[in-house]
């Protein structure tokens, strides 16, 4: 078998996405949760690129490019936020940061 079915790529991306979600749900460090988000983005990128291969159309690449840019911006802001949280609260535990409630 020298050909990979397209669905393999998609399933891989689904699994990676699931792993990202798992990281988001089960991890307790803000930074790791943030990295899980990046993982999800990557998974989505993979399916973008896969579909653009399927359709022989380059738009998927453009989308994943945009996703990367957004991810970079998000990382910059998010990490700054994390820094501020750490400065103000002295913790990185995501469960400690729960004052946004009634």
């Amino acid at each position, binding site marked *: 078998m020298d050909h990979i079915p397209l669905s393999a790529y998609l399933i*891989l991306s689904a699994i990676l996405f699931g792993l990202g979600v798992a990281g988001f749900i089960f991890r307790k460090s803000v930074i790791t949760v943030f990295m899980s988000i990046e993982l999800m983005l990557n998974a989505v990128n993979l399916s973008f690129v896969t579909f653009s291969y399927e359709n*022989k159309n380059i738009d998927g690449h453009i989308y994943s490019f945009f996703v990367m840019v957004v991810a*970079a911006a998000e990382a910059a802001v998010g990490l700054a936020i994390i820094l501020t949280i750490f400065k103000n609260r002295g913790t990185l535990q995501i469960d400690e940061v729960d004052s946004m409630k009634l």
Partner: protein
Amino acid sequence: MDSILFIIAAVAAIGCGLNLVLQSHPISSALSLIGVMSSLALLYLLLGAEFIAMAQMIVYGGAVMVLFIFVIMLLNAGAEKRSDKSLFARIFGFPLLAVFVVPLSFLIKTTFSAQVSDVSFGSWVGGTAEAVGKQLFTKFLLPFEVISVLILIAILGAVVLAQKEID
């Protein structure tokens, strides 16, 4: 040939992803995330998206993840402690996740196995830098400009946040 490459990359990706979730130390998670990204870059190459592959390495591997590592080192973040909060997530998280991934994969399998073509390396190399650039500056010019503005705003926001005094 490329089935081997795919299997290697996929296994590496999934392994690193699992590692990301399972490791208790942020640095290990970060490195495994880099691993995921590198193997994804390889997969992009297999899918004929060489520019995206390189951009993946440069942007994610080079910029984003370096930022992560930098912050982790700066805050000297240690291994995370157990917490008894957010009961709901700990109870329902895993079942929901299983229900999320398994049927999704099944759906994909049944949907896309039938009529879509197989992937073979080099059969379509559309993602050259030239092609991507052409698209980017003709069809997607407005989104491109908008996203550049977004980046600018993000930089400003990061600077402001990072400069904020503690009080």
